[in-house]
C-alpha cells in the first residue's frame, strides 16, 4: 500500500488545541512544524519487520473525555493492585486515556525540590525547563514520521525532574490507564536526573478494555547527567487491537548509570525501540527486556546500547516467549563508536518457542569501530530444554508445572528488579495469563 493517507487533524485544529491547553508558544510552534514535516517524513524501518500497512496515523479523536479520580480508592481494582495503597506518602501519577487523573508527591520529594507532574502542567508551569529537554537531546521530533506525529499530536505524559544531588529513596510511579476504546494516546515521559542525583521510576501502560482499534505512540526520554543514576521500570499491557509504537531512549552523561527493566506484554502489534546512548566517559547502561507474544500479534523489539564515551559498559538481556502464531523479531545492537576505548558491550538474546506456528528471530549485532574494547554476545532460539523438563519431572513435578517453572525462570530477570511489589506481582500474573 503506497497511498498516503491524509492526517486526521490539520494545523488549525492543532493550533486551537494547543491554545486550549494554554501551551507556551514554543510548544505550539514545535507541534505545527512537526505536523508539516510528518507528511513527508518516512516511517521508521525496524529491521526485518514490515510496517507499511500498520495504522500509525488514522484515529478519530485527539482527546477523549475521561473523569479524574478524586482518590486512589476510586481506581479500578486491577489498577489498585499496581499501587501501594497502604502508603499515603508516595509519588504517583495516574492518567486516564488523555486525562491527568490523579497526582501525589511525597513529602520527601516536595522538600527536595523534585518536579513530578503531567506534561500539560509541565508545559505551563515549567516551560523553560521542559523546552530545554523536550525532544532536543534524546529523541528529535524530525527523526521519522512517528516522532514527528508524536510531537504534533502530543496528548498525554509526565515530566519528572530530579535536581542536583537529590537522591530519592522512594520510587516514582506512573500508571497510564487505557479504558476508552476510542482513545489514542501520544504519550511523552521525560525524566531528567541532574548531576549526582538518583531516582527509580516505574510505569504501567494498562488497558482495562478488552480490545480496541486505537494507537499508542509513546516516547520516553531519560537524561542522566554526570554521575546520576536512573532505574527505569516499565510493564506494558495494552490490549489486543492497539497498535503501539514505543520509543524509550536514554542519554547517559559522565559516570552516569541508566538501567532499564522492561516487561513488554502488549497483546497488539508493537514496535519497541529502546536505545541507550552512553555519551559520557565511564557511563553505564543495562537493559533487561522480557516479552511474551501470543495470538497472531506481530512485534519488533530493537534494543541498542551505543558507546561514545571511554570506559563505558553496556549490557543487553532479552528473553522472549512466543506461543500460538505470534511472531517477533529481536534485534540487539551493541555499538562502539570510534574513540570509545576500553569499553565493553555485552548482549544476550534468547527466545523460547512454545508452538510450531510461532516465529521468533534473534539477531545479535555488534558494530565496533574501535580496537581497544571487549564485546560478547549470545543468542538462541529454541524449545523448552527436554533435559531440564526431565530433571524437574524426575522430582515429581508435572510437565505442565515444570514448563511453568522454566518459563517463569526464563522471564525472571525483569521481574526480580522491579522495585514496586504490586508491579512485580502484576508482571508475574500477566506472564502466567499469557503463557497459559
Amino acid at each position: 500500500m503506497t497511498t498516503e493517507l491524509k492526517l486526521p487533524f490539520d494545523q488549525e485544529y492543532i493550533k486551537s488545541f494547543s491554545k486550549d491547553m494554554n501551551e507556551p508558544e514554543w510548544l505550539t510552534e514545535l507541534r505545527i512544524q512537526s505536523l508539516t514535516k510528518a507528511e513527508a517524513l518516512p516511517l521508521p524501518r525496524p529491521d526485518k519487520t514490515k510496517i507499511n500497512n500498520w495504522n500509525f496515523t488514522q484515529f478519530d479523536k485527539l482527546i477523549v473525555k475521561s473523569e479524574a479520580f478524586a482518590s486512589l480508592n476510586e481506581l479500578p481494582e486491577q489498577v489498585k493492585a499496581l499501587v501501594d495503597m497502604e502508603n499515603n506518602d508516595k509519588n504517583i501519577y495516574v492518567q486516564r486515556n488523555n486525562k491527568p487523573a490523579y497526582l501525589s508527591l511525597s513529602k520527601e520529594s516536595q522538600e527536595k525540590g523534585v518536579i513530578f507532574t503531567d506534561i500539560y502542567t509541565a508545559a505551563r508551569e515549567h516551560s523553560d525547563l521542559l523546552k530545554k529537554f523536550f525532544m532536543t537531546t534524546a529523541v528529535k521530533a524530525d527523526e521519522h514520521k512517528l516522532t514527528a506525529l508524536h510531537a504534533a499530536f502530543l496528548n498525554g505524559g509526565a515530566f519528572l525532574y530530579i535536581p542536583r544531588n537529590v537522591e530519592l529513596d522512594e520510587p516514582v510511579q506512573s500508571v497510564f490507564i487505557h479504558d476508552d476504546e476510542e482513545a489514542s494516546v501520544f504519550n511523552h515521559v521525560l525524566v531528567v536526573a541532574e548531576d549526582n542525583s538518583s531516582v527509580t521510576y516505574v510505569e504501567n501502560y494498562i488497558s482495562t478494555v478488552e480490545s480496541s482499534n486505537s494507537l499508542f505512540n509513546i516516547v520516553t526520554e531519560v537524561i542522566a547527567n554526570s554521575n546520576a543514576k536512573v532505574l527505569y521500570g516499565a510493564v506494558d499491557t495494552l490490549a489486543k487491537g492497539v497498535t503501539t509504537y514505543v520509543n524509550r531512549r536514554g542519554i547517559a552523561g559522565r559516570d552516569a548509570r541508566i538501567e532499564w527493566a522492561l516487561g513488554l506484554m502488549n497483546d497488539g502489534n508493537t514496535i519497541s525501540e529502546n536505545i541507550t546512548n552512553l555519551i559520557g566517559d565511564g557511563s553505564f547502561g543495562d537493559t533487561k527486556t522480557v516479552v511474551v507474544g501470543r495470538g497472531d500479534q506481530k512485534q519488533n523489539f530493537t534494543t541498542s546500547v551505543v558507546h561514545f564515551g571511554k570506559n563505558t559498559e553496556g549490557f543487553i538481556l532479552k528473553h522472549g516467549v512466543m506461543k500460538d502464531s505470534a511472531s517477533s523479531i529481536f534485534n540487539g545492537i551493541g555499538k562502539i563508536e570510534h574513540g570509545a576505548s576500553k569499553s565493553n558491550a555485552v548482549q544476550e538474546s534468547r527466545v523460547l518457542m512454545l508452538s510450531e506456528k510461532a516465529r521468533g528471530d534473534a539477531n545479535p549485532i555488534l558494530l565496533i569501530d574501535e580496537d581497544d574494547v571487549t564485546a560478547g554476545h549470545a543468542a538462541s532460539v529454541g524449545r523448552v530444554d527436554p533435559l531440564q523438563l526431565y530433571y524437574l519431572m524426575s522430582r515429581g513435578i508435572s510437565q505442565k508445572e515444570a514448563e511453568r517453572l522454566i518459563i517463569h525462570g526464563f522471564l525472571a530477570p525483569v521481574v526480580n528488579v522491579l522495585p514496586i511489589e504490586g508491579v512485580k506481582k502484576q508482571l508475574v500474573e500477566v506472564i502466567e495469563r499469557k503463557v497459559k
Partner: protein
Amino acid sequence: MAGSVLSIKDLHVAIEGKEILKGVNLEIKGGEIHAIMGPNGTGKSTLSSAIMGHPKYEITSGSVTLDGEDVLEMEVDERAKAGLFLAMQYPSEINGVTNADFLRSAVNSRREEGKEISLMKFIRTMDSKMELLEMDPDMAQRYLNEGFSGGEKKRNEILQLMMIEPKIAILDEIDSGLDIDALKVVSKGINEMRGEDFGCLIITHYQRLLNYITPDHVHVMMQGRVVKSGGPELAQRLESEGYDWIKKELGIEDETVGHEA
C-alpha cells in the same frame, strides 16, 4: 508397612539404535542398600537413566516394576510420585528458578491440592537438612544448580533426596568429584535415610564411598549385564585387586559396551 520392591527383569536398553543394556536383572527391596560397581562404559549410568525415563534412552525389552506396577508405562513425574528417585550425575541448571521454589514444588507435587506443605514447615525442614549437609544457607535462594560447584550439586541432589523421601533411590556416581570431607557429609545424608522403608541403589566406580555406606549387596556390571553379585566383601576385593580377576574368571576381554552417555 514393609518397604517397596523395585524389580528389574531382563532389561534391554538402546541409545540412538545402539544396544547398551543387554539383559539386566536386579531386585531392590526397602531396607536394602545395593551397590553397582564396574569400570567406565559398562552401562551403569544407562541403567539408572532408563529406570527414571530419560528421553534419550529406548527400552527395547524387559520390565521394570515398582511394587508390581509397570514403571516403564509411567511418565517421568509419575515414576517419581510412585516413589522412585534418581540423584543425577549431571543435574540440569535452571536459571531464574530458586532452589527453594523448586524444592517446594517437588514436595507439593506429592500432596493433594489444598494440602500443600506450609511455608514455615517447609523452611524449617529444609533448613535442618541443609545444616546436616553443611550447605551454605544462601543456596536455598540461588538458582537451581546454576553456578554450583561439583560438590554443591551433589549435596543439592542429596538435599532433594532427604526432602522428598522416596521409597527407592538410585544414586548415580554421587561420589565422583567429591573430596573426602564432602564424601563424608553426603554419606551422612544417605545414612540418615536408611530404614525399612528406604531402598537404595548406589552406582559408583570407587569402593571408598562404601567405607561410609555399607551396602548389603554388591553387583559388578560389564558389557551391559550384571556379571557378578555378592556381599560387601566383593567391594573390598575389587578395591584391592581391581576388575581383572573377574574378567579372567568370566573370559571377558573388553568389558565396555557401546559408549556410556
